[in-house]
């Protein structure tokens, strides 16, 4: 028995090393050198050896640790409901005071805004993937629809951000329905493939429809939002007041950064509140039941078409809100911001968060979007640290950070 486990450990380590060698040989092993006699290739086998050694050694170490710790360290129990509620409120409270804390500056608030965009997108996609179980790989399309809706409506008709926000949500939801139709008959992986294609179609259309979208040049000079007509510009437009003037503050560009931060915080919390409420309503319950078993749903008289379309439309609507926010924050949008990798990141946030856990998504967004930002000082090793963090999560929590599902209804007394 002992010998057998030792052998499996060694074989595991060896296999890991082989995979590492196969990956490292082309990527690390060969170096293109630009010398006086032109380009030449030089080997860098020592790097490959290091990579293989680290991977094989790491695999052996993990195997040994698992063996030694097996049974000794009880896996942490899922945090009780009450604790999670407190954690949630604590997070909201922290988010509310964050811009005013002594250590926070413009840079931090800006990064927090970015993370919050992804939290909101994660919560939106969670409706489609986590609740309704429809694996959507083209979510960024609705984000793009929201962003372009705002940009075009505001530039063509001069509408304000607050008028455009619901319109952008509505347009994105409509697109959600339209794109939902071809997906209705499909299941599982096939949904992923088709939605991925649809997401790309939207991007390609944006890229090539020069007259309307500006093509690859995008749209610039997008109107910034105002607070009840108070502008955040240094010089207000004709007949308007600035925020700083109204409150008797000295003008600072930070005001707008903080305002945008609170705006996305409010939008994200709205998404969260919506999800928490709708899970208790028949529609939300039907989404979850559909994820569990479509045939059973049919036999209970539920119309799967309506349920799927409503999930697609709702998720898309929140992506549309997030998209308008993105456009107003950047002031400039182009198809480059809406590539497939964005969809993949949002999906990774949902999956890593534990498919359906609201707090899990916040943690995952912090990890996936926040971490690379904070690691910028590591420069070229940034992605290495990021990859390492991902590997650790998959080892430690293979089914997502918080993967327990909360029932939406309880009886107070079951005796």
């Amino acid at each position, binding site marked *: 028995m002992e010998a057998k486990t030792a052998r499996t450990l060694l074989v595991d380590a060896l296999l890991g090393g082989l995979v590492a060698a196969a990956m490292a040989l082309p990527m690390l092993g060969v170096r293109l050198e630009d010398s006086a006699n032109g380009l030449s290739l030089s080997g860098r086998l020592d790097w490959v050896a290091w990579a293989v050694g680290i991977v094989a050694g790491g695999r052996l170490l993990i195997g040994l640790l698992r063996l030694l710790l097996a049974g000794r360290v009880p896996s942490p129990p899922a945090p009780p409901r009450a604790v999670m509620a407190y954690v949630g409120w604590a997070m909201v409270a922290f988010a509310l005071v964050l811009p005013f804390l002594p250590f926070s500056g413009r840079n931090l608030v800006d990064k927090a805004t970015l993370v919050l965009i992804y939290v909101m997108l994660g919560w939106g996609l969670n409706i489609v993937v986590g609740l309704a179980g429809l694996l959507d790989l083209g979510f960024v399309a609705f984000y793009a629809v929201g962003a372009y809706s705002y940009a075009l409506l505001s530039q063509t008709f001069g509408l304000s951000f607050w008028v455009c926000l619901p319109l952008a949500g509505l347009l994105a939801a409509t697109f959600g329905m339209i794109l939902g139709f071809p997906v209705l008959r499909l299941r599982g992986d096939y949904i992923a493939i088709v939605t991925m294609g649809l997401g790309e179609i939207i991007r390609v259309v944006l890229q090539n429809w020069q007259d309307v979208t500006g093509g690859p040049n995008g749209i610039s000079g997008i109107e910034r939002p105002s607070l009840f007509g108070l502008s955040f510009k240094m010089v207000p437009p004709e007949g308007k007041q600035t925020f700083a003037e109204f409150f008797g503050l000295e003008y600072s560009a930070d005001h707008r950064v903080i305002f945008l931060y609170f705006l996305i915080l409010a939008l994200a919390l709205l998404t969260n509140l919506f999800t928490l409420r709708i899970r208790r309503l028949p529609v939300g319950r039907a989404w*979850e*039941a559909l994820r569990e*078993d479509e045939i059973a749903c*049919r*036999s*209970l008289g539920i119309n799967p078409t309506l349920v799927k379309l409503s999930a697609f439309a709702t998720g898309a609507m929140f992506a549309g809100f997030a998209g308008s926010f993105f456009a107003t924050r950047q002031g400039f949008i182009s198809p480059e911001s809406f590539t497939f990798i964005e969809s993949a990141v949002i999906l990774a946030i949902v999956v890593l968060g534990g498919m359906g856990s609201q707090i899990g998504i916040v943690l995952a967004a912090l990890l996936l979007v926040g971490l690379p930002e904070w690691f910028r000082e590591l420069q070229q090793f940034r992605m290495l640290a990021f990859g390492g963090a991902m590997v650790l999560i998959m080892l430690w929590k293979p089914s997502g950070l918080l993967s327990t599902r909360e*029932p939406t209804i309880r*009886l107070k007394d*079951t005796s």
Partner: protein
Amino acid sequence: MLRIEGLQSGYGRIQALHGIDIAVTEGEIVALVGANGAGKTTLLMTICGNPRASAGKVWLAGEDITGLPTHHIMRRGLAHSPEGRRIFPRMSVLENLQMGAARGDPAHFAQDLERVLDLFPRLKERLAQRGGTLSGGEQQMLAIGRALMSRPKILLLDEPSLGLAPLVVRQIFEIVAEINREQGVTVFLVEQNAFHALKLAHRGYVMVNGKVTMSGSGAELLANEEIRAHYLGGGHG
């Protein structure tokens, strides 16, 4: 209550039902027995509209329901406990029951819940538990309970004995009899376990290769030599 005439259906080019005639009157328990692959489940699914019938008619309480979409059929006082139970594994028992009432009037949810929990006291103990963690028998109880939450006039049961211990099978069949007796729910039962099903049923049908070959009262069929030989293990049932 439920009348089926010349019903044909199948999957793609493969025809599974070759003209079925069955009638279930109000207040009855009717059992349809047959071997694996005879088309029993297909019949129930076709009644529910998925797959659609290629020929023939289905009447429910005097109304022609052939060709209606499934979710419309299920709103007409018909409930279906599907083969393999198909409970929602990650949702709690209570949520499963709630889903059963999805199409009903929320006003009588509490009353229906109490009725179902009285029938299945085991579910009452497990309300907060996830459906997937229940035992097979409990899952079957949950599937029947979930179907009853919509206040059906007729209940279609697909193989409630599937994979269950004999003691549990007896328990579940007793409850089915009770549902029929006390609550006046008509039951159409599809079973491989011919002995139990025919003992429970007022009338029975035997299905072979997509055709009904025999029918009669439960007792008659149980006494039939051919049935004893084919479905009841040579008379030792």
